[in-house]
């Protein structure tokens, strides 16, 4: 039974993106990604106002023994970041799809969404990788 939420879309590099309905999209990493990384000790977030290209490295999640780039699944401008992560990076470990969101973005081109996977597609990807 999959726990992958169906209300959002996914990148192959394990980021999720959720339409908030007000023109903004929230971005985070998947539960699978946080499990691979282990206990996170630091999250480096982009600054509000930064313009991000699709596929650009926009954030870093750090565990004790690894550091991983987070790639922006779409093109747009950062409009908010999750400041909770600054003091409590473990929030991503605890709730990657909820309280552990990373930043919000204003999309430049909605058609980019079509390149992303839905929950079933992402589950299939995970099955393939396993």
């Amino acid at each position, binding site marked *: 039974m999959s726990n992958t939420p169906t209300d959002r879309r996914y990148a192959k590099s394990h980021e999720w993106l959720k339409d908030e309905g007000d023109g903004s999209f929230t971005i985070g990493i998947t539960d699978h990604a946080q499990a691979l990384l282990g206990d996170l000790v630091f999250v480096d977030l982009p600054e509000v106002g930064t313009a991000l290209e699709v596929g650009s490295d926009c954030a870093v999640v750090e565990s004790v023994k*690894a550091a991983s780039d987070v790639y922006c699944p779409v093109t747009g401008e950062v409009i908010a970041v999750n400041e909770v992560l600054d003091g409590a990076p473990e929030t991503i470990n605890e709730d990657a799809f909820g309280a552990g969101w990373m930043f919000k973005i204003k999309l430049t081109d909605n058609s980019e969404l079509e390149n992303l996977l839905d929950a079933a597609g992402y589950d299939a990807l995970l099955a393939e990788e396993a």
Partner: protein
Amino acid sequence: MLATIGVGHIDALFDEIPMALRCGELEAIPPGMPEMEVSRLMQARARIDGQPLCFIGAGAYDHHIPAAVWELTTRGEFYTAYTPYQAEASQGTLQLLYEYQSMMTALIGMDVSNASLYDGASALAEAVLMAVRGNRKSKSKRILLPRSLHPAYRRVVRTIVRNQRVELVEVGYDGNTGLIDREDLEKHGGEDFAALVIPQPNFFGVLEAVDGLTDWAHLHGMLAIAVVNPLAMAMLKPAGEWGEQGADICCGEGQPLGAPLASGGPYFGFLCSTGKLVRQMPGRIIGKTVDVDGKTGYALTLQAREQHIRRSKATSNICTNQGLMVTAATIHMTLMGAEGLQRVAAASHANTGKLTQALTALPGVEPVFEGAVFHERVLRLPIEANKALRALAAHNVLGGFDLSVDYPELGDALLVCATELRNEDDIENYRGKLERVIQSQVQTPCRLKPDW
């Protein structure tokens, strides 16, 4: 052993290496020698270099090192261990490095210190790269570098940062004071720079007006990088307290803290910064933590900055550092204490004052810059500096560093230094010899000697 492996001859172990690549006996390498012969050779080599009386500073200083420092440092458990990758079996090195970080942050007045870089000059190059990454107000890759900074440091920084397209812009010095030229600096006030480098003391030994310079850098959106002599920090205002907010990064040569002159190395570079910049710091950092029973222990931390994890995105390529020199420095600082270091600094300052007084009493010898110095002073000679040094060296006195190559505008200028190890006899020895050298040189043009 060969039978266990299943081969007949040791050569068979190299069977995957193409025969055409084997090199055969290397006749150009001398045959091996027993320890007693190597010992005789090295004794002879050491002897011919002599032990001249040294008044050179210029980045490496002859200080007393307590006997216990190297007795302890060369214990096999420190000397022959490696990087503390297995923390449980390296608590000695790890705790010592944590103690080092504690002492350096106290001495410099900053939040964090790494566990060492190669030397002072390369530490400054790393500080420059760190400032370029860490300045959130500026995306500039330009750095203001004063000409009053050690010339070798300027060259090293250029070598190391050039290929990353970091631009170094030089700021001149005031011909009367030897200080960073404020007018020249102001010209850059409206431009975008990542950082201003501030030496204390500067290469001429002169004490810069660090408070004003630090505030100037911050006012213009730059980080302030301090390059200091750590011994001077026992007496002078620490970099973390400069100006309104303190310098952001401080680096320098750790040699005055327990490393012998030894022809220039191994020494160690130290690097401290504000807590905000810790993730931009290169090199190893040790953190205090607890084990599964809650007992205090020490471990390498923030390793995700480093090359073995972050690879091409690491803050630096540094791996091996100068651990053993830091071991010596930690023991040195412990034995000296704040009071001891302060006395050494004050005695070196006083001796250089006495040396200046003695030498400037000679006709034609004069100080070049006015103003306070730490323990070095620029003196102008009435004769060619280079010739004077050679003549002094022939009489076993190393009279200082010839500035005429790097600063031809200063004329026949020498940079001299008398640490706490030079006593009044030594100073008189130098004065007497310089007097004779000057006399013989200024007499030559008068053709008192026959013209062969």
